[in-house]
């Protein structure tokens, strides 16, 4: 049976619109005419762009028409076409330019497809995406506010703390009873602990606010005195808990001394809080095989393996203990300090001991060899 091309054109399951080179409709098929609510002859002579809502016309003139002229075709253009009664019909359009022998555009052809369901689906997707974006943005803003609050609070706490420390120092010069001296030592220890907490909180907030941990590296001065001072401070806070420290630092370590002190303070504070009170806490700081290592070990209950993985996450608290947990920032900040130095902080825990080990590659110059030192 011969193919009835006229019928195929008129009643095809898509709209056909033929125009002259300027976009004036020369012929539209019955399918398209029916969709847009005009009689086919009523469409003749109208510009195709006139069937579009004004906004879409601008898009057509500034994008679609140029593409037809330069590229010769467009495909899958999503736009609305106006129905004779004024409402918009979502449609998808393919277009092609027909050229004459000189390569000039002679006429245009459009195939038009209805796209109501697809458009609805797209709108739904778009809507959900916008909602998701909005909620992410507002959450981000909220958490930023929270972290700014933490940063400001931490910073502001430093002043009264400094006043307390100053007051305690002045009291030391006074004639005090034994009980008064003991209270003063406790106050001093608390000031050191509170100072450490504030440092951690500030570092955490800064990290979240995008500042990260900044380093002021020092490869000119020995690190050991800094670490010894930290150990001394913590001994003063926990006089009953034995701290065994071994130093074997044979080279200058290119690192941030204050940060390194903070890292040790955090690890040591953790060990003193969680370690068994009847066993010593063992600190080892050494340079070996191109690495610098600080290891802090304590005895007592091992850390459950499930908790090990999350130990360095902020606000993680072991759970079994309740009181002395703190904010759960100490280990997180320590691991961030390790990372900032290009090193890492690892942990191993078994019934014999729990050991945190900081390792960083050495960039520093070798120092005059010094014998191993042992302290207490």
């Amino acid at each position, binding site marked *: 049976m011969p193919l009835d091309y006229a019928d195929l054109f008129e009643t095809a399951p898509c709209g056909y619109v033929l125009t002259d*080179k*300027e*976009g004036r409709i020369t012929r539209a098929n019955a399918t398209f005419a029916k969709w847009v609510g005009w009689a086919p002859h009523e469409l003749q002579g109208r*510009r195709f*762009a006139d069937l579009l*809502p*004004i*906004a*879409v*016309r*601008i*898009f057509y*003139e*500034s*994008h679609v*028409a*140029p*593409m037809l*002229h*330069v*590229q*010769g*075709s*467009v*495909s*899958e*253009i*999503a*736009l*609305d076409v106006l129905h004779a009664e004024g409402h918009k019909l979502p449609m*998808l359009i393919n277009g*092609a*330019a027909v050229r004459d022998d000189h390569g000039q*555009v002679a006429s245009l052809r459009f195939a038009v497809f209805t796209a109501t369901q697809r*458009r609805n689906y*797209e*709108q739904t*997707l*778009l809507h959900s995406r916008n909602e998701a974006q909005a909620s992410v943005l507002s959450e981000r803003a909220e958490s930023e506010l929270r972290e700014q609050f933490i940063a400001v609070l931490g910073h502001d706490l430093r002043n009264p703390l400094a006043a307390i420390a100053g007051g305690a120092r002045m009291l030391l010069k006074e004639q005090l009873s034994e009980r008064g001296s003991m209270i003063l030592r406790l106050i001093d220890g608390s000031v050191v602990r509170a100072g450490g907490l504030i440092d951690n909180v500030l570092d955490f907030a800064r990290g979240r606010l995008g500042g990260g941990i900044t380093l002021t590296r020092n490869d000119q001065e020995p690190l050991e005195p800094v670490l010894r001072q930290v150990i001394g401070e913590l001994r003063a806070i926990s006089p009953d808990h034995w701290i065994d420290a071994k130093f074997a630092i044979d080279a200058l370590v290119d690192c941030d001394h204050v940060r390194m002190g903070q890292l040790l303070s955090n690890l040591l504070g953790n060990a003193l809080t969680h370690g068994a009170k009847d066993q010593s806490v063992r600190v080892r700081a050494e340079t070996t095989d191109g690495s610098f290592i600080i290891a802090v070990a304590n005895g007592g209950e091992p850390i459950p393996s499930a908790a090990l993985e999350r130990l360095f996450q902020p606000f993680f608290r072991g759970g079994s203990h309740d009181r002395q947990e703190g904010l759960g920032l100490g280990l997180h900040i320590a691991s961030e300090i390790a990372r900032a130095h290009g090193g890492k902080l690892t942990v191993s825990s078994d019934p014999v001991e729990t050991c945190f080990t900081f390792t960083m590659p050495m960039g520093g110059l070798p120092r005059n060899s010094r014998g191993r030192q042992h302290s207490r």
Partner: protein
Amino acid sequence: MMLSGQTGKSEGTGAILRLNARTAGSGEQAIMFAHGFGCDQNMWRYVSPAFEDRFRTVLFDYVGSGGADIDAYVIEKYATLDGYAQDVVDLARALEIKDGIFVGHSVSAMIGLIAARQAPELFSKLVLVAPSPCYIDEADYVGGFNRAQILELLDFLDSNHMGWSQAMAPMIMANPDRPELGEELAGSFCRSDPEIAKRFARTTFLSDNRGDLGAIEAQVLILQCREDLIAPLAVGDYVHAAIPGSELVVMKATGHCPNLSAPEETIAAITAFV
């Protein structure tokens, strides 16, 4: 066409690279063609070659269009036409243009006017193709659109985001219909980041630059098309009346892009003027 190898200051060379500028032709005087909202320098591909025998032709893409450096897009800078005009000035200076000719299509007509006021030494002749200083009707002024319609356009670009980016996708493929266009054009023509296109539309269609009309040193030619939906006849008349001494040519071409639909007539009109 080649990338200009000017040895200007680094900032100048920056403008050449940033705006994907291409120079061709031989001649003392430069003629710079600037594209409008929607496409890129290829809008002039049928027109600019006709001037290469007498002029040094300059084509470029605005930041956010075609092959311009997308990283140079700064929201605040391009929120007004002044930011685009600054780029035209930077580019013209980098190419050491003096007393050149500026041909601006659509929104570029106004950009050219602003640039020529900022740096009068750059261009002695301006050709404004389908210009409109303000697309929105206001009191006695007829821009062709009301505010709601322009907002609908912005909304359309927004809601059509997905359909639009899909519509742009086929351009990445080679163009079997016109293989002579080559990969490069097939990849970029009329393709722009939807977010930036939306902002450019906002800057273009919400701007009121009627204040930038008025007397100007450069000679001005206005090319007005018939049946231009975007810049109707009344707007061409308004621009003509507002720039003393300007020349208005109403072309036989219809639509908004005579540089594509009627290149011969466009070339003839510009040639007669320059």
